[in-house]
């Protein structure tokens, strides 16, 4: 598998480490959330539950044997076709704040 790091260019997947689903998001209510509380469900979503789709998947990789940037790779996990590779920090800075997300939902 070849992954095009936005910083280093195209490299073999042996240079990268995989973490997993990039669509789950760490809640920021650690103070309130405890098992049994309604906030805890979000933590379950973040730590344990996965859509695991058989198609397009946003996922986190790290160019661990390269520039060490964390990357958001959008990949079809049935065919391994890669649609995009973004710098994770840039993607993280661009995402709406959790407060805004909560208001929207």
């Amino acid at each position: 598998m070849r992954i095009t790091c936005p910083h280093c260019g195209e490299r073999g997947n042996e240079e990268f480490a995989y973490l997993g689903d990039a669509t789950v998001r760490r809640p920021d209510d650690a103070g309130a959330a405890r098992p049994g509380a309604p906030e805890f469900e979000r933590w379950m979503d973040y730590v344990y539950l996965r859509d695991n789709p058989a198609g397009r998947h946003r996922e986190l990789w790290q160019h661990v044997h390269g520039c060490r940037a964390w990357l958001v790779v959008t990949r079809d996990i049935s065919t391994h076709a890669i649609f995009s590779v973004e710098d994770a920090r840039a993607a993280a800075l661009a995402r709406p704040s959790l407060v805004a997300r909560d208001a929207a939902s």
Partner: protein
Amino acid sequence: MRYSIFSVLREAFNGQRGWRPAWREPDPKPAYDVVIVGGGGHGLATAYYLAKVHGLRNIAVVERGYLGSGNVGRNTTIVRSNYLLPGNTPFYEWSLKLWEGLEQDLNYNAMVSQRGVLNLCHTDSQRDAYARRGNAMRLCGVDAELLDREQVRALVPILDFDHARFPIKGGLLQRRGGTVRHDAVAWGYARAADQRGVDIIQNCEVTGIRIEGGRIIGVETTRGFIGAKKVGLACAGRTSQVAAMAGLRLPIESHVLQAFVSEGVKPLLHHVVTFGAGHFYVSQSDKGGLVFGGDIDGYNSYAQRGNLPTIEDVMEEGFALIPSLGRLRVLRHWGGIMDMSMDGSPIIDRTPVEGLYLNCGWCYGGFKATPASGWCFAHTIARDEPHPLNAAYRLDRFATGALIDEKGSGAQPNLH
């Protein structure tokens, strides 16, 4: 027809004309008491034990491809019960006990070969960890021996004892562990289940799960709706998709695990050996090929194939472990879709949907679990409650924290 040396001899003089199909190819009935989704080892075993142990007569197994087309025919055939944690050891030991009587039970020779499984250790702390595990096994009545370096050498002299980067310091041996001819497991269960009236419906993909009032009423398939009082999912790497049809989101990721077989050679390796300074396991099949594997590739995949870095890594480990293998050739490699759970252990449980049952999360250890998985899943479905052997394999353990994390690597499936 009963299989035996007598039937083989009779047919030898009859031009093999008397053999009958090992299973029927029935059309689906409008409804069943239990529909098992997934015609792999676990699904077929579940159907068999539902019929045999629980006396159910109206059972179907639906399979999207041909029976046994998934992981039951894609693994490295190892069976063992050398587990550490109390949630696991008795379950896998029951599985090994069922393996020990499987062929006579099914009247199908699956070549259960208890040749011994040897886990090598390369550091003192690894040896201590194996001692902990071996003692845990012994506490559960499972055989376990801790070998020193010379005992390992006597058992498997072809390993690299003299120049290894990570010297072999000993090993944990389970003599009752071994290998089983994988395809024969699927076929044996299929035949035995069929003989007990189970309808095995191949080329029948589930496309929807019909639920009314929180209760299952059947499955939509490519061969039409099939009504069911109870539905059991045993679809391994495809579990997330099928469960999503019932609105479930699971602590499961699907990953590719590659397996390998070499060209056949005369007997060379008489045990199952695992390398402790990496991730590599190998045995020699009765046909003569070395059957081996290593780590998962590490990324989500439904592709049933992997990539070169893992292939190289696995074969490097093999070559390092057995330096005389340099000129032996790998014949083919392939991939299976592993239902990797978040703690590395399986789930056999009810679900929030009444009448829907779940059997998944086998990671890359599902083959050895086949008999006990089927046995326990059958119990869970028939009695609507888990058997004590699978009581720890609950779906809610991720919320309660009662995890079964043998490796202690946490909520990251690709590390298990």
